[in-house]
């Protein structure tokens, strides 16, 4: 119960440290960092209060929150320490390692470019992911069904499997008509590989009793594919979708760094070239947030579509 207040302590520590210790460098717009700190603690408190007042269903939420409270507190302690090592003492060398308010300042200064890059990365990621996943499910189902298709597909999967998709990026830059379609192809390739392999395994492990029952209950071959084989394979398919997402994120950033002249990966390279290191940090934090959001969404989808797995 008491531990739920820990983040407040961390917030106080970080704020006092920031305002009371003298700076070794000039710090423009000092209030921005404080606003971010405060926004964090306000969001946390609102959430805690809300879940506390909603007793019945909220209580579980509240307990989870107070279980995690020391971690939120640790984030503030880390921020305070980082600030001491950069802005307050200069132990970590500027400009290679900027202080946090400096990172915020550069994000505010360059936000239109940042937004454009984020949206570009997101679009490239989603388009490639959907293409790769659909192709993967189709390949897996067909190969799982037909012995002769499996005969030809399996060696292809086995040989291509160990090659990281990024290997193909330079080649696709030369061959593809547009950089965008070239990168879509490469990112989708990794997703396709993961999803078709897991779908194939899922389809081949569909229980015979399910197929027999469906046949007896009057399902046509097409209905068996869409109403039995694919839903039965979903747990396996989602494993491939998760590993496919990891592969897609890696390939996306590499593709943007070495070829595509847009997106967050390119933004990092570009910031490095101009020695604007604080902007690199902005892009890294944005990538962190973006990829976590994407994976969170995927997890939620998985939980929804596999809600039948653990009884309720």
């Amino acid at each position: 119960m008491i531990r739920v207040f820990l983040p407040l302590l961390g917030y106080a520590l970080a704020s006092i440290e920031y305002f009371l210790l003298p700076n070794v460098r000039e710090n423009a717009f000092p209030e921005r960092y404080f606003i971010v700190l405060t926004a964090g603690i306000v969001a946390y408190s609102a959430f805690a209060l809300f879940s506390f007042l909603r007793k019945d269903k909220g209580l579980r939420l509240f307990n989870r929150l107070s279980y995690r409270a020391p971690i939120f507190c640790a984030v503030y302690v880390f921020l305070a320490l980082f600030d001491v090592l950069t802005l307050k003492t200069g132990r970590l060398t500027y400009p290679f390692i900027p202080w946090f308010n400096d990172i915020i300042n550069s994000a505010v200064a360059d936000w239109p470019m940042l937004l454009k890059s984020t949206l570009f990365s997101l679009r490239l990621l989603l388009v490639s992911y959907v293409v790769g996943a659909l192709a993967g499910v189709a390949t897996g189902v067909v190969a799982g069904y037909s012995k002769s298709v499996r005969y030809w597909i399996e060696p292809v999967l086995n040989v291509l499997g160990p090659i990281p998709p990024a290997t193909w990026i330079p080649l696709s830059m030369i061959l593809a008509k547009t950089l965008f379609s070239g990168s879509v192809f490469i990112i989708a390739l990794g997703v396709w590989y993961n999803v078709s392999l897991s779908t194939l395994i899922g389809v081949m492990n569909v229980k015979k009793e399910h197929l027999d029952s469906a046949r007896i209950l009057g399902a046509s071959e097409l209905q068996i594919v869409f109403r039995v084989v694919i839903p039965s394979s979903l747990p396996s398919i989602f494993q491939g979708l998760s590993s496919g997402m990891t592969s897609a994120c890696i390939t996306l950033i590499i593709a943007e760094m070495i070829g595509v002249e847009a997106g967050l990966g390119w933004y990092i390279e570009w910031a490095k070239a101009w020695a604007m290191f604080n902007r690199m940090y902005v892009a890294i934090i944005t990538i962190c947030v973006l990829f976590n959001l994407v994976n969170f969404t995927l997890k939620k989808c998985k939980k929804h579509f596999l809600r039948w797995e653990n009884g309720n």
Partner: protein
Amino acid sequence: MATELVLNDVSKSFDSPHGKGDRISAVENVSFSCHDGEFVSIVGRSGCGKSTILRMIAGLVNPTAGLVSVDSQVVKGPSKERGMVFQEYSLFPYLTVAQNIGFSFKMSGRARENKAKVDEYVRKIGLEKFANSYPSALSGGMRQRVALARTLICNPKILLLDEPLSALDAITRMSMQDEILDMWSGSGSLAIMVTHDVDEAVYMSTKVILMRPNPGRVKRIIPIDIPYRRRRDSDAFVAYRNEILNGLSGNGS
């Protein structure tokens, strides 16, 4: 409407898993017939082709030789007229109880007009509270009741039961035997059950088909002439049980 099932000199052999064109004979020259109102159990040691016979009647596999026919029509593939309940894991885990029971209507595109019928069957098996639960939340006995309802809702002429109770604990098993008997006698259809439990066969059947293994052949057909609800400790019951047990352990032809 009368139903008659005839197996005429049916044989089934499979390719040997060890290859080289060897064939393994699962069932050889099996003939018997039965009709509606009968509860037939097929009993025998493992490897006597009990399940293969059931799968041939269902139309899931075709005999290598001989004919399976229902009302003079040769069985060529699966049909709702010959419903089947499997040992375990035959419910679709991603569908709720009600969706499982209504599966056949969904397949024929008549789910909406049969909603009331699905509700009726959910009530019949006493699972109203679980209508929207997934099979993972059910006990083994509940699952088999759902599997039974899913099959019976199609009004099959023949109900095929492939060791439907063998995964259940002894007490659930006995109460499920009564439940199956109630549903069967209510419908008046023909039921054919594969089991390796001699007690179960004597308790439930009007006729027991004794098989012998390698290859599977019919050894004897024993009609059980005791009125229902049978007592497992009655003299007649014990006598039938001993007769079947002797038939199973003996190695004569």
